[in-house]
């Protein structure tokens, strides 16, 4: 959990954010959204709608052209370099292109966020083994990640995002290369992490993973929120702008 965060505010608060990539590609336009602590949120939308851009804004990989973003009590427009570092240690991201290191082993890839936090070796081993079981890759523990199939790599990316038990998990198309059976396992993992206190945002096209849940879903269209379902009656702040 983030230290500076008080529970009565939304965990993520995005206010009228616009992101324009040079020269003039409008990825997000005047978007507002708030996510409560402990929520699971689905972000859907056509290819190129701006899902990845929104996630990148939340984890400080991009800066908005307009608008305010507040994550776990940090105002991202005023955040210092070392604050970004400690914020990122609290965020686990499943990148759409995985960003795993092909020449390091599965173990090393998953352990990386914990090593960065100087977690002790025993705890790292325990946690990695536990995660490997969840993603069904125990037999690939010491294989170099570049020699895995794409679906296996995606699972490694998911395990890495989860490894540090982060306060926030951003999963960008986490099941794009996974079959229905394993997708279900992964969703179970996310639910477990959520139960343990993580807020989870999942950007996806895979209808099957959100069809039967009661979590909130926001649909993006050309950089605008076009629709949102509010199952849990939790937050009403996320509005079409």
């Amino acid at each position: 959990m983030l230290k500076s965060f008080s529970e009565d505010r939304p965990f993520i608060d995005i206010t009228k954010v616009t992101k324009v990539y040079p020269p003039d590609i409008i990825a997000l336009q005047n978007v507002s959204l708030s996510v409560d602590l402990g929520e699971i949120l689905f972000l859907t939308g056509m290819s190129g709608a701006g899902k990845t851009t929104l996630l990148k804004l939340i984890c400080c990989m991009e800066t908005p052209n307009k608008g305010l973003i507040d994550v776990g009590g940090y105002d991202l427009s005023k955040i210092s370099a070392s604050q970004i570092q400690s914020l990122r240690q609290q965020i686990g991201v499943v990148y759409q292109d995985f960003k795993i290191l092909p020449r390091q082993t599965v173990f090393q890839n998953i352990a990386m966020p914990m090593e960065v936090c100087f977690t002790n070796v025993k705890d790292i081993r325990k946690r990695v083994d536990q995660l490997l079981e969840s993603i069904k890759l125990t037999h690939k523990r010491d294989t170099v990640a570049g020699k895995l199939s794409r679906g296996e790599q995606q699972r490694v990316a998911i395990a890495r995002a989860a490894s540090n038990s982060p306060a926030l998990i951003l999963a960008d198309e986490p099941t794009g290369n996974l079959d229905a059976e394993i997708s279900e396992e992964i969703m179970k993992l996310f639910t477990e992490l959520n139960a343990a206190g993580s807020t989870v945002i999942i950007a996806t096209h895979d209808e099957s993973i959100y069809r039967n849940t009661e979590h909130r879903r926001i649909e993006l269209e050309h950089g605008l929120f076009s629709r949102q379902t509010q199952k849990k009656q939790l937050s009403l702040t996320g509005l079409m702008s």
Partner: protein
Amino acid sequence: MSRQTYFFLKQTARNLKQSWGTQLLTLMTVSLSVLIFSFFLLVYINMINASERLGDELRLIIYLDHEVIPEMQPRIRKKISDFAEVEKIVFISKSEAFHRLKEQLGGEQDVLDDLGADFLPPSIEIYPRRNLHNLTQIKEFSDYLATLPGAQKVQFGQSWVERFGYFTELMRVIVMLSGILLILATVFMVSASIRLTVVAKEAELEILRLVGATNTYIQTPLLIEGLLQGIFGSSLGLVLLYSIFLWTKMHLHGPGLFSVLTLQFFPVSTTVMIIATAILLCTGGSFASIRKYMRI
């Protein structure tokens, strides 16, 4: 802190193991650069030494029309020293000059017996300081000496000085130009090998930043690596240079040669300086090259 130290050592060990190819390349680059640089430094230092030694043999002789009485000597000494610093001034009387010639003739000296001991003119020999090696300066000095009272003619081994001056000048130009070229080559080599290292590490650095690694976490292993590479690379380079030095010394060993020139290696202080510089460059270079990953 102890857990962190452990992490860093582990990290460094892992890096070394995973990218030993690149590491070896960098090590070789550092060695080669240090070798090249210190080789030229050594050549330069020995060249200066040599030119000083050879410069010792330079002397100017003023032939006089009459002997200098001992009381006058200090005044002339002063006049000479006023113009240029000199090492030594020797007054040669007629008889001294005669004795010298006699010695020089060796077996043939009896031919002089019929001549009077004063057929040779008296002279003053001037051994200039080492800073007076430039031909033009020597000529100016010689012109000045010709104006001294009683000076008939001023002589110095003009052809020898010219030849020697030409040699040192050429050597200096060659060493200087080589030095510039080699510094360029060295800079190129070091930056190319750092670039190769960074290319290999790019993905890892990006992800480390994204999972929130602190500057310390990223820089410490690099610092250790740079330190190791600086130390081992430059030591290897210097050991190689010393081997070359010894080989050259042996190779050039001949009777009498070392009376003229003695090859000298660096003093310990210079060696230490070279190693320190190498370490600084290695760590500094890798820090500079990952600078763009240190933003955010």
